[in-house]
């Protein structure tokens, strides 16, 4: 039950949506609603206006650009993403993360744009978004702004997105040739959110050594982050068990881990290292092909 009233609009274009967002005082953009509606139901969010993007069909698309970049529309649902053949082939960590969101029903409605805009520290998709060095394309009153994923996640429910901007799409650069990705998650037993989720994207050089290692962690800290120490440790190695274990051991370096009923900070850090190892192992195997 929702007791706090709001108005409801369904703009036809994202530009119109941005205008409406500017006009309404306490307005919120709604996509699948699976981040926002639970908050509204609990009274934790009390918007005066809801701007529903559902009539902007172009935002649902997943397409490949001429340069090979894969562009995922903000309204693409987790379910669409996890079943998409291109995403599965090229962005396995994203496909797996989308397939691990919530449950079947949540994946049917929830969208990647909603997930990234809401920026729950335990959301799944921030991890692959970071690991693939994606660009978050936002539309605001002044037009388009591209925000690199690395600059996007700021804290608990905090992002670089301005209050008057709307995410239009997420652009994933084409992964290099011998690249493998994987997402490994320790789910919260009750809520299904990530207590820890690690996306690993590994590119191997011709000689089989690790050329590029991108390891992104969600659920463990106030915001999803790149485990740069682990990446450095892995780069240039053969990606063997010992190298992976050594790198994974650094995946929680320097973080202030979250703590809650499901996991203390100390245990979360352990989960980060374990799930980093598991994600990297699978990513390396996939990179080897």
């Amino acid at each position, binding site marked *: 039950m929702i007791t706090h*009233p709001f108005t409801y609009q369904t703009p036809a274009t994202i530009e119109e949506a941005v205008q409406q967002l500017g006009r309404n005082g306490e307005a919120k953009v709604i996509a699948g609603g699976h981040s926002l509606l639970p908050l509204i139901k609990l009274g934790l969010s009390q918007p005066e206006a809801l701007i529903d993007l559902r009539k902007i069909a172009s935002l649902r698309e997943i397409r490949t650009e001429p340069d090979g970049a894969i562009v995922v529309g903000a309204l693409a649902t987790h379910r669409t993403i996890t079943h998409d053949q291109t995403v599965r082939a090229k962005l396995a960590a994203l496909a797996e993360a989308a397939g691990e969101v919530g449950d079947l029903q949540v*994946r049917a409605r929830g969208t990647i744009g909603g997930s990234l805009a809401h920026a729950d520290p335990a959301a799944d998709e921030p991890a692959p978004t970071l690991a693939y060095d994606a660009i978050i394309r936002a539309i605001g009153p002044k037009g388009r702004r591209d925000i690199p994923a690395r600059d996007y996640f700021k804290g608990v429910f905090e992002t670089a997105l301005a209050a008057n901007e709307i995410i239009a799409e997420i652009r994933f650069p084409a992964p290099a040739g011998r690249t493998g990705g994987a997402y490994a998650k320790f789910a919260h037993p009750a809520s299904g959110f990530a207590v820890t989720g690690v996306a690993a994207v590994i590119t191997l050089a011709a000689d089989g050594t690790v050329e590029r290692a991108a390891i992104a962690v969600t659920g463990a800290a106030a915001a999803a982050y790149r485990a740069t120490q682990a990446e450095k440790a892995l780069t240039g190695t053969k990606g063997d068990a010992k190298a992976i274990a050594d790198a994974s051991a650094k995946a929680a370096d320097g973080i202030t881990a979250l703590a809650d009923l499901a996991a203390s900070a100390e245990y979360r850090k352990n989960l980060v290292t374990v799930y980093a190892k598991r994600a990297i192992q699978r990513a390396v195997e996939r990179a080897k092909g």
Partner: protein
Amino acid sequence: MPDAHAVTFTVNGTTYTREIQPTLLLVEYLRETLGLTGTHVGCDTSQCGACTVRVDGLATKACTMLAVQADGAQVVTVEGLAKNGALHPIQRAFAKEHGLQCGFCTPGLMITAVDFLERNASPSDAEIRHAIEGNLCRCTGYHNIVNAIRTASAEMRQSTAAQPKVAAEVKG
């Protein structure tokens, strides 16, 4: 109060137009506006799945969707599973395998299962368990629910042998 919106959508094959407040949840609309009380409310945090209905074919938690968001959609509830008096295979299977006890979670579970089985015609038990993780049942321990969904899948395969299999969900 903000203005009501005229919303038109189809529920179990019948098209309804109603003036509704934007705050009305889809499950409230189904239960209280249309009187379709087979869809239940078991929690307020999108965990239990008792409110699951199909919206344009997709199993959806109707407690986490505004009724206005369903404008133009095709909605199917438990009341719409049987066709022309013939039970859907999932309904027959739940009864045959004793997949329900109190029956409160059952409509949502059957709806989720139908959506799942139409996309994965020959699931493993592990895939079935993964598919219904968003539907809680406190009575059955799930054992017979899994059996029921497996039984239904066999029957649905026979009746829709021509339909191509869509890839199963990836499991991380």
